[in-house]
């Protein structure tokens, strides 16, 4: 198939049009013993290259320890490339003078909601980023209101974060990032510690930011259901990007995914099993509606 060819190599985009461009990125964690001798080396990110266009919704999939977080931390200059380069919105992340600009261009939401809320009250937490950026007082208030309203958390502005549910805490964390007016937001497994309801809230918020506000979203996750709305999916394994393509393209390669200890969405898996049993279904079915439609069509054709 033609599609397959395209999947194999990262899409080649013109540099000017790409918002984020990662070239041959490599990063190693070096473990040392007490005498500072090298005990072991983990290559967390290994020769990764890809591009993201402004306004894209990218999902990054990968098993635990595949290097997703390490990759993410390179995008907003929390880690710096040992080899290769990361260019964000025209800025090289190694440029120390641009550090704050880079961090305000790409905001980051982390996994554990309790460990990223700094304020003792919701609105104070949202104000933390703008305060650090030196935004004038009157404008901070405006930004706090606007971003809490965007995330539907305005009524909780005076609450203590300790009293919110996990999903609400993550929405506050997202609001806190939005208040910095970033062009891009990276969510590193934001739903890993949430119940299904909280997961739904957070993913819906991320999609709305992308579709309504036009913010570039990079969503890292290992829940397959969360990536089906992405424009593009990257699959990581052992520090390398192993697959790249639309959700449909990725999920039609069920066996490869399984080899990387990843599952596919339940519906996709069901369709895949049915197809293996001989039903003429298309590859990479993502939603229940699609499956139902194909099955009814098949039934009609059969009579």
């Amino acid at each position, binding site marked *: 198939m033609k599609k397959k060819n395209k999947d194999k190599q990262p899409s080649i985009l013109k540099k000017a049009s790409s918002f984020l461009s990662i070239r041959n990125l490599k990063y190693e964690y070096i473990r040392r013993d007490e005498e500072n001798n090298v005990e072991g080396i983990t290559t967390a990110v290994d020769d990764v290259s890809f591009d993201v266009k402004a306004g894209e919704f990218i999902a990054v999939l990968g098993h635990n320890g595949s290097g997703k977080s390490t990759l993410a931390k390179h995008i907003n200059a929390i880690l710096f490339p040992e080899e290769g380069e990361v260019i964000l919105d025209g800025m090289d992340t190694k440029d120390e003078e641009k550090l704050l600009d880079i*961090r305000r261009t790409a905001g980051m939401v982390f996994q*554990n909601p309790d*460990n990223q809320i700094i304020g003792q*009250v919701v609105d104070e937490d949202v*104000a933390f*980023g703008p305060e650090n950026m*030196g935004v004038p*007082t009157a404008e901070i208030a405006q930004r706090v209101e606007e971003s809490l309203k965007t995330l539907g958390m305005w009524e909780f502005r005076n609450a203590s974060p*300790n009293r919110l549910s996990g999903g609400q805490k993550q929405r506050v964390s997202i609001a806190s990032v939005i208040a*910095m007016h970033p062009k891009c937001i990276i969510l590193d497994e934001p739903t890993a510690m949430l119940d299904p309801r909280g997961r739904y809230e957070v993913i819906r918020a991320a999609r709305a930011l992308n579709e309504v506000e036009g913010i570039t979203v990079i969503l890292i996750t290992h829940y397959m259901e969360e990536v089906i709305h992405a424009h593009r999916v990257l699959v990581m394994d052992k520090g390398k990007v192993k697959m790249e393509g639309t959700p449909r393209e990725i999920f039609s390669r069920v066996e490869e995914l399984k080899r990387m200890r990843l599952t596919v969405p339940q519906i996709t898996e069901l369709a895949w099993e049915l197809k293996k049993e001989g039903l003429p279904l298309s590859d990479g079915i993502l939603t229940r509606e699609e499956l139902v439609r194909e099955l009814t069509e098949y039934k009609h054709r059969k009579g």
Partner: protein
Amino acid sequence: MIRDITLGQYYQKDSLIHRLDPRTKLVGTLAYLVSLFIFTRPLVFALAAVFLILVLILSRVPFSYMLKGLKPILFILIFTLIINMLFTRGTVIFSWWKLNITIEGLKQAGSMGIRLVLLILGSNLMTLTTTPTRLTNAMEHLMRPLKLLRVPVHEIAMMMSIALRFIPILLEETDRIMKAQLARGADFESGNAIKKAKSFVPVLVPLFISAFRRANDLAMAMEARCYHGGKGRTQYKPLKYKGRDFAAYTVLILYIAAVVVLGKLC
């Protein structure tokens, strides 16, 4: 439940005292505490008590709520009273075995007791009417001159507010770890003090590991949100003195003057 512990026990209410600038309250409380200790005249204590009651009424915090604040220090209070009563020398009015109670001792105990009660009530009133955030904010402002001496004022205030934010979380975590260890057959109740202390090791170790992980995560989250120390930082809710604060300072000065006059005259 543990998550209901609010540090500094803020009592939500909309009153004149609540609305005062936290710096006014901090300075006022410190001045009040000092005023309790410069003179030992009964009239001064009476004045201090009246002043406190007036502020308490203005603050609209229920009196029963204030009394609750005395409970934790009840033991210290009684202990101080007894020590002062028994070990002050002077005219003996009552004697039993080797213990002598003197007039001076009674006086000493009385004034110490009143001071302690007023001291606790006074500082409680401040924490009941001011959120911890505003208090740390006030401290940062008031300590600003120390910056000249290279005291890291902003950093201290930031550490305090982070500590305040994480204490309830760590308490909840302690609770969870204790339950987990109980389920594995741990015993925190029996044995002498040393054995009890030892039984807490399996709680403290995971607690410390988790605290360090949290600290690491938090530092990263702060950096990701452009935190780079106090330099060039603006404020969301900057402190601003209002008319009522000047009124409060005036009252405070009048109070101190009255204390000095009463203390010197009588």
